């Protein structure tokens, strides 16, 4: 592996192509087959695969290990890393390790609070926050120094991602926070699932006004809905999610057996709309435990085939 070779995702984006990423949750177990099977479902449909880091604070196979498995299959992973579970020392060490294993993309997150997970009695860390993490990776990469200022013998190569939620409050502040992440060193941004297009457009408009879309690649989040129940659940129970009433109604308006189809239909419409928005450089598919649908959607949306890695 040549250290200077950039990530596939970075190349797709810098080539000005509409990128597609998808999410892939590692298993609650040690079996690598599961992650390989999931990877197989995504092969050819996406430019990179996000591997979550103990998502929703439930213990799973580590993100780094899962990334390595995918990498070995020839898929490009985006390693997610949360500040919830590691202090700054562990974070840096893991970044160096990940880089050494050929992982070239990182998505810096603060992580879901442990109260939502299976072990709410855990102590959290939150030594630094996600903006600090972005900045930390940036400094490691660009200056070749760790946080203490020590010169790293070989700096990690990472295409740095950060998350943004255009739907959380306070809305006015969301763009400021985006700018902050960009200033800290984010190369790309993956957003929370978009159902409320209107609000997303508004957010993008503000981001454009601030000139942020020139500085960063924004990938809009997409999650296909399976049922009315899921839509309702996401609307009510999932933090930071904005599922408008109209979407829930739409999901409920079709017979039970047709709901999944309707969900996919909504996705496709959304993707079509997103592609019209200036500054949106790609989508990020979060098909929760429904990876098989990603390929179908990508194809139907006319985003297939994906550009080949050089």
């Amino acid at each position, binding site marked *: 592996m040549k250290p200077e070779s950039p990530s596939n995702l970075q190349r797709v984006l810098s080539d000005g192509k509409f990128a597609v990423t998808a999410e892939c949750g590692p298993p609650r177990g040690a079996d690598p087959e599961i992650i390989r099977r999931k990877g197989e479902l995504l092969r050819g449909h996406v430019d990179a695969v996000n591997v979550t880091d103990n998502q929703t604070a439930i213990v799973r196979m580590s993100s780094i290990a899962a990334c390595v498995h995918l990498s070995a299959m020839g898929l490009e992973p985006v390693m997610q890393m949360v*500040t*919830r579970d590691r202090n*700054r020392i562990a974070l840096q060490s893991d970044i160096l390790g990940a880089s050494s294993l050929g992982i070239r993309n990182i998505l810096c997150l*603060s*992580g879901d*609070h442990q*109260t*939502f997970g299976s072990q709410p009695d855990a102590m*959290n860390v*939150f*030594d*630094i*926050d*996600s*903006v*600090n993490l972005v*900045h*930390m990776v940036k400094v490691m990469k660009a200056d070749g120094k760790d*946080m203490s200022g020590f010169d790293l013998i070989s700096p990690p190569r990472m295409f740095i991602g950060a*998350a*943004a*939620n255009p739907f*959380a*409050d*306070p809305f*006015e*502040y969301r763009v*400021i*926070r985006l*700018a*902050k992440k960009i*200033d*800290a060193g984010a190369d790309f941004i993956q957003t*929370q699932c978009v159902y409320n297009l209107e609000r997303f457009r508004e957010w993008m408009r503000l981001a454009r006004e601030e000139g942020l879309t020139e500085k960063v690649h924004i990938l809009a989040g997409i999650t296909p809905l399976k049922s009315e129940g899921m839509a309702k659940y996401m609307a009510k129970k999932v*933090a*930071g999610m904005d599922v408008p009433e109209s979407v829930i109604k739409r999901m409920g308006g079709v017979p039970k057996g047709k709901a999944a189809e309707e969900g996919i239909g909504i996705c496709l419409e959304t993707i079509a709309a997103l592609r019209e928005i200036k500054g949106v450089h790609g989508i990020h598919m979060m098909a929760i435990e429904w990876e098989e649908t990603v390929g179908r959607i990508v194809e139907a949306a006319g985003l297939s085939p994906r550009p080949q890695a050089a």
Partner: protein
Amino acid sequence: MIVGKQKSIAEIREIVSPYKKLLVLGCGTCVKTCFAGGEDEVATLSSALRLLFKKDGRSIYIEELTVERQCEDEFIREAAVAISKNTAVLSLACGAGVQAIARRFANVPVLPGVNTTFIGVLEKQGLFTEECLGCGDCQLAVFGGVCPVSRCAKKLQNGPCGGSRIGKCEINPETDCAWQQIITRLTALGQLDNLRKYNPPKDWRTSHAGGPRKLVREDHVI
């Protein structure tokens, strides 16, 4: 003030059960204010314990006393006579008070009757909220007087997480989002620019990360 909550009767019963003569020692400052360890709570708890043990057919002698503060020698001293008459002390002070008593009276078991919960304020009747973590490096000037270290579930220093909704925190819809409050307040103060600045990782050495802390005032040491 330090906010605490009395332990459950079952737990207290467990820890006091080896002793025959017990001093229930209240503290008249913080824990009194949050109704965990003042004169009234001492009286109520003592009475409850007497009933409890009597019900079980056990006899226990319980003495009641409340001093102004269990964390200051001058007031601890006032308890010395009562302590010497009993085989154990059930302290209704915060953890500091319990340890201060333990340190001053080497041969007496000192048992905690209160869970020290946080440093907070009485927001309104019956509602105490945490306001400070004692991190040792106060940045409230930047945050418009609202502390993200104690009041944000993730101690975020650079803005709200994606879970903030209608001013509430994602982990509990009853909890106000600290960042929403910071933003509201800074907006009102016209200091929103504070938030555009990047806040570097916090130096936690002044907090618990640095181990038990000491504060030395050289000017007070002779």
